[in-house]
């Protein structure tokens, strides 16, 4: 992926056609994004040589207890920085840098990070992906962190780590961690065909998190994103891995069985797994058709893949997928603006409802690896708005996110608690983009989008934030689902409220499939609320920012 892929133009041509037609009228609201990074005090760039052509992650999570997402930005050769969110409710974005309390050497060579509460103490911890030793940062009050590698018996290793995912396996107090590694630079013949193994770290039986016995996931194929996903509704998530064909030899996309108490093993062709070789950069999961089985958006160079379980060829118990990206207008294989017709390079991918119409949209961070001549130099990020016919329509230009920057990681989160998702994009060798969603543009200003909910889950005991839960939000006959997960995207993750657009619905019913598979009763909630669902409680609680936005 980092070097030119000369055969790529042919692949794009074969894929044929176009993705979403940028000239097609879009009936739904197009959110108006304004980049407030400079005024918000966030100008961190992701920098560095070859090893940092990949990575560039963002972790969005609350580190000071006010429920507003704070931002941890990887810096590559620049120090990673934590920004505390000072944005007023519904107001301009505002952040202030926070002293992480880390040694300078621990803050550099960072490629990405994912938030999760590893030790179940109520404070979000961070899995920090680095070139060299990875870090597990134990979070404390008021955005304080300490390196917990020793405390958690975690060997950060020496690899070039580019992906991460986590899950709480059945009956485990602490999460199982998966680290995805890229090229083994020190192997003979590197970088070609010298992908490092990935690692699976299960918690040892102990009172605290102990990760002293890593399991090698061999072979590794230069992984750039991984995600625990319950692809078949079995209740036991598998580990989906997307890999960069630029460097592997004989490799492919992978999915691992991760069954409790058993060694992980790859899904095989005999089980239905089909060979697919792409420049895999980021995974996003969403149940687009409401059948309970997730679809996957896989970013690559050229065509984005949009995979749907193929019930005809495989049935629901075999991981056979067909690519529906072209049918849905989601290939996003070339820039939609700027006139550069060379193929795109996609990185972070994330499904979310950015215009609150009740339909999932797809964000893809785009950007040339560095100066690859066969790929678009001006390669704006995609904002593919979901339509009622199941297709996607490109709105990145109209929404104001088309920038002459090289996007990498990102996060769609509500930074100012107004019910509309804002967008953070980490850019290589360029300033971070911090897009505030102002709603729908009008001739006289902006107006709010559709109705929304933001949902916080809590369960007593381990896995307080219910990673692995599935949320089902019903409005009339329309059901929207969200999975609570740690992983995916490109070196980027976020925790906190889970956002759901409701369109014109004034109220909704929520059911939660908790991580152990138990379904909740139905919670009745009203739109435009932050709701907290605590397992075992009869009714939803509400959360109000100060001042409330409504």
């Amino acid at each position, binding site marked *: 992926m980092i070097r030119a892929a000369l055969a790529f133009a042919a692949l794009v041509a074969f894929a044929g056609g176009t993705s979403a037609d940028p000239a097609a009228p879009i*009936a*739904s*609201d197009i959110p108006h994004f304004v980049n407030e990074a400079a005024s918000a005090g966030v100008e961190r760039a992701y920098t560095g040589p070859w090893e940092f052509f990949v990575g560039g992650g963002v972790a969005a999570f609350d580190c000071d*207890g*006010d*429920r507003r997402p704070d931002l941890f930005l990887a810096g590559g050769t620049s120090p990673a920085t934590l920004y505390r969110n000072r944005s007023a409710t519904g107001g301009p974005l505002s952040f202030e840098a926070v002293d992480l309390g880390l040694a300078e050497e621990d803050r550099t060579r960072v490629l990405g990070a994912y938030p999760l509460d590893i030790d179940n103490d109520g404070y979000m911890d961070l899995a920090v992906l680095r070139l060299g030793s990875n870090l597990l940062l134990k979070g404390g009050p008021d955005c304080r962190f300490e390196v917990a590698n020793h405390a958690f018996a975690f060997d950060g290793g020496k690899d070039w780590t580019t992906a991460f995912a986590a899950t709480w396996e059945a009956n485990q107090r602490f999460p199982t961690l998966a680290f995805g590694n890229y090229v083994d630079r020190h192997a003979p013949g590197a970088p070609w065909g010298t992908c490092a193994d990935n690692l699976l770290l299960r918690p040892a039986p102990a009172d605290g998190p102990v990760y002293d016995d890593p399991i090698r996931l061999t072979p590794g194929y230069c992984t750039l994103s991984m995600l625990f996903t319950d692809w078949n509704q079995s209740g036991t998530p598998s580990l989906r891995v997307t890999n960069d064909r630029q460097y592997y030899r004989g490799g492919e996309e992978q999915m691992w069985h991760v069954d409790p108490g058993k060694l992980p093993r790859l899904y095989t062709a005999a089980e239905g797994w089909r060979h697919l070789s792409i420049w895999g950069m980021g995974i996003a999961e969403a149940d687009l058709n409401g059948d309970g089985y997730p679809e996957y958006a896989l970013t690559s160079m050229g065509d984005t893949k949009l995979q749907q379980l193929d019930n005809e060829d495989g049935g629901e118990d075999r991981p056979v997928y067909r690519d529906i990206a072209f049918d849905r207008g989601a290939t996003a294989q070339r820039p939609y603006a700027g006139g550069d017709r060379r193929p795109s390079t996609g990185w972070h991918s994330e499904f979310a409802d950015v215009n*609150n*119409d009740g339909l999932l949209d797809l964000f893809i961070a785009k950007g040339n690896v560095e100066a690859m001549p066969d790929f678009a130099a001006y390669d704006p990020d995609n904002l593919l708005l979901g*339509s*009622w*016919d199941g297709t996607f329509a490109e709105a990145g230009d109209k929404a104001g996110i088309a920038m002459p920057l090289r996007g990498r990681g990102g996060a769609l989160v509500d930074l100012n608690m107004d019910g509309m998702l804002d967008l953070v994009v980490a850019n290589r060798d360029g300033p971070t983009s911090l897009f505030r969603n102002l709603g*729908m543009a*009008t*001739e*006289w*200003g902006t*107006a*709010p*989008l*559709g*109705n929304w909910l933001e949902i916080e889950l809590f369960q007593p005991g381990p896995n307080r934030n219910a990673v692995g839960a599935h949320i089902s939000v019903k*409005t*009339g*006959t*329309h059901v929207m689902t969200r999975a609570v997960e740690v992983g995916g995207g490109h070196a980027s993750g976020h925790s906190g409220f889970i956002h759901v657009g*409701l*369109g*014109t*619905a*004034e*109220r909704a019913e929520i059911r939660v499939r908790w991580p152990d598979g138990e379904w909740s009763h139905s919670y*009745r*909630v*009203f*739109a*435009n*609320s932050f709701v*907290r669902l605590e397992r075992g409680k009869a*009714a*939803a*609680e*509400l*959360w*109000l*920012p*100060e*001042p*409330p936005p*409504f």
Partner: protein
Amino acid sequence: MTPGADLRGSRGKRSWQTGAALLFLLALPALADDAPPPWSERAVRSHIDFSTLGGALTAQQLDALVAAGRALFTARFTTEDGAGRPMATQAIIATKRKRPVDAAFRRTAGLDANACSSCHREPEVGGAGDFTANVFVSEGFESADFIDLDPQFSNERNTNHLFGAGLIELLAREMTADLRRERDTAVAEARRSGKPVTVALASKGVDFGSITVRPDGIVDPSGIEGIDPDLTVRPFGQKGVFTSLRQFTINALNAHHGIEADERFGARWTGTADFDEDGHGEELTPGDVSALVAFQATLPSPIETVPADPAWRTAAARGAEVFDTFGCAACHRPTLPLDSLAFADPAPFDTAGTLRTVEVQEAATYDLGLLAWAKTLPRNDQGQILVPIYGDLKRHVIADDEVNQLANELLSQRFVERDTFITAELWGVASTAPYGHRGDITTLDAVIRAHGGEGRTARDAYVAAADADRSALVAYLKTLAIDP
């Protein structure tokens, strides 16, 4: 007056988003190709351009808007207007049918009326309806095609009158603002003090329970009474589940007539201009809806009449006393104080799908005080208008184990349980028999006796009272009339 004759304009697709400043309503031309011939079977002969509505309306402009609204309210919609929804249900969220309907009209799932005034007509247009004008309320999701009158499929409801509806909505808006202010103050105090704060919720003397706020902003809504957890007073509908006349109007147009207002069923929210697949897109513009709102909002407040018969006057005076002593006034509050008669449309507390104040540059505002009937409303020493509503805009449980005639529905509605209804406003009750939410109670005596639950104490006092006092109460209620 020809419907909309003075307010002609283009359909103005999504024109409400332009939020243009107020233009002169009376000068708007009709589009030449939009003008039907005199013999046209269209009931809606032109549409009102919403972009012409904004800012304070003069009395003349309000008159024109109200006239256009009245014309729409009485229009017998036809298929040429877009009446009918062959592929859409009556649901308030755009919902597709699984298959086309076999009959355009059906008393259960609709269409069930030709015009708004088909049911809202007693004692005059905008009024209530007889039992014959009952409707069958189903949310329109799981049982979209129900054909059975069995109450397991729907709730049968009598038609409420709309006189004084503008005042009701204004009261509700002020109460919503009060309650949210109390909530927000509690949130701020809990954060400041670092301790949980419990605050009583009350507005205009009506108690809505309490909330408890933790220092981290988490709100326990379990103490809230008679209102939804979002603290929006929803004054319309028998259950008190609709926020505004605008929301109610859009719901009803679709449910009863298959006329789909663009601001909810249009392409913005459904991806198509013709969601119901009847061959007509943009069936009613936001301007049309505004006219309907203006007509309803300006309907006169019912009044307390003074009987010509001296004996009736005497009995009514005694009735007013026992109304209090029986405890009727605990919920049927004779007046609620209103700060302002300025009616803004779109309204401030609607949610997406009903045009919101925040979606326009400047809402149209009309002063109900310009209307002759409003000038007669009494005021208190603080200058507040005393709205003679005989209600509290709060929901109550109205049945218990012994007295449960009013718990005769099998379906909850919009999260409100089957035995719970908003206090029926008694203004105009003399003009709007029959009684009860199903319209199946023919006398005031019988409907009082049907009060259980939170109305049980007052009901029992009535039942135990002397015949003369019971008769006096009826005499009093019979003075609360819609001015003919």
